[in-house]
């Protein structure tokens, strides 16, 4: 089943075109990794999918409905689409638990007890059972990002967008976050992931898309992209980022 289908997506800021002719289809249980240099349009693409940015051409269809139609209420779409940001963006004035139950309670109308129970289960699964009552500032970067992941998962979204969620973390903390993303992938969570972690993309992705100058230059299975890329641009990029 196709969860998300993007065709001919174009996005520009004034004269600067940041995404052009982007076609992308995401089926249920897919993990699509977007790779490419900084400024290649990975984050902008995710922001367009979440309707945080107005697109300039093309169609975004989510669960069979065109959500790029101006009449669609973006909040209704975002209720079924989770997003995690590079800088965690946890609310500093709320405890971890309250961060996680805010949307289920206020947006989805889940009773407090049920919301807290689900949040506690997810927090425990991510090794944060002890941290539910503390405020985000007391956590390490890795713990904060895991909490942000839990916050996005608490509303049980059909699609999870992860925007370079390990880019702000120390190398030693990257592993603990990616391990959880890997577990989510193994459970069949549908995800679109912008990442700089090539080893992760290779291991977890069902499909890898290489973006360059706002275009998906090449997409395919991780094996195809990492071992036998067709395009010269992809080869250049991989030479620079892969060790050896």
């Amino acid at each position, binding site marked *: 089943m196709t969860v998300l289908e993007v065709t001919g997506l*174009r996005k520009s800021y004034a004269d600067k075109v940041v995404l052009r002719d982007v076609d992308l289809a995401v089926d249920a249980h897919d993990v699509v990794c977007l790779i490419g240099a900084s400024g290649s349009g990975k984050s902008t693409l995710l922001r367009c999918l979440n309707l945080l940015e107005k697109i*300039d*051409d093309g169609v975004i269809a989510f669960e069979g409905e065109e959500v790029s*139609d101006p009449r669609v209420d973006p909040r209704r779409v975002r209720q079924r689409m989770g997003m995690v940001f590079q800088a965690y963006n946890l609310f500093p004035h709320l405890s971890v638990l309250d961060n996680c139950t805010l949307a289920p309670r206020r947006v989805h109308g889940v009773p407090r007890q049920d919301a807290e129970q689900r949040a506690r289960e997810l927090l425990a699964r991510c090794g944060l059972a002890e941290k539910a009552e503390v405020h985000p500032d007391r956590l390490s970067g890795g713990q904060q990002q895991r909490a942000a992941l839990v916050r996005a998962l608490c509303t049980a979204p059909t699609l999870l967008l992860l925007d370079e969620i390990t880019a702000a973390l120390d190398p030693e903390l990257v592993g603990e976050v990616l391990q959880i993303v890997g577990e989510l992938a193994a459970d069949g969570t549908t995800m679109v992931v912008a990442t700089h972690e090539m080893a992760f993309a290779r291991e977890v992705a069902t499909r890898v898309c290489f973006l360059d100058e706002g275009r998906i230059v090449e997409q395919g299975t991780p094996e195809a992209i990492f071992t036998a890329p067709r395009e010269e641009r992809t080869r250049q990029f991989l030479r620079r980022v892969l060790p050896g």
Partner: protein
Amino acid sequence: MSYEPSVHELNRRRLRRRLRWRSSLIASLVTVSVFAVLVIGVVSSPGWPSVREYFFSGFHARESFPEIARGFLKNIALFLMAEPLILVLGLAVALARQARSPWLTPVRVLAVIYTDLFRGIPTILLVLLLGFGVPALGLSGVPNSLFFWALVALVLSYGAYVAEVFRAGIESIHPSQVASAQALGLTRGQTMRYVVVPQAVRRVVPPLLNDFVSLQKDTALVLVVGIFDAVNAAQDYSNYNFNDTAIVVVACFFIVLTIPLARLTDWLQRRVAERERSGAR
């Protein structure tokens, strides 16, 4: 390489335009009807004819205008003199409260007492106390003019408020800024002068302007010591002619003065928000 928008996109643009047009139509209709209801509500009230005669008489507005305008010059003079003095006093007191040197402890204590005391006293009482009290002391070498002491009262009262605004601004600057300034070898004073205060001032401009709008109105308080400002002139006219139109006229004077400042405050606030949050959405 040329780009032609797809038919789908052209349709979407038309739809967006239509939706935009529809929301501006709703906005205008709602606004016009709300204001119409308000105006009709007031005008159709049973007492409106006498209210109009008593508060909105064109004749009395024209008659009272020159005297009020003359008085208003006093209000303008008061706040033009008071504003720079308040800024200097407020910043000095805020900085004194931030001082950490043991030698400056008495200054710090004085600054705390000053803000606590003068923020707590109603401005009108300060004007009375200073305006009537100080000249009565009969000190030599001290000006005895009511205008001078009314000005001092306004400066002292608002200086305490503004000091707190500056202090809030200074304390809102992230400690990492102080740390990096000190890591460069700047002294505490230099850190304040070159790093903290410039950022703090930028941040507190909107609340400062807010205080100044308030000050413009509070210049009217000097009438309690008998200074013939615009409000005093209006009251005088009203009492003499049994018509309160002069009060409405003087209110208009203040509005004409404060609205541009309010718009400036909004604009500055928006500019700061755009600059500080650009790229961090």
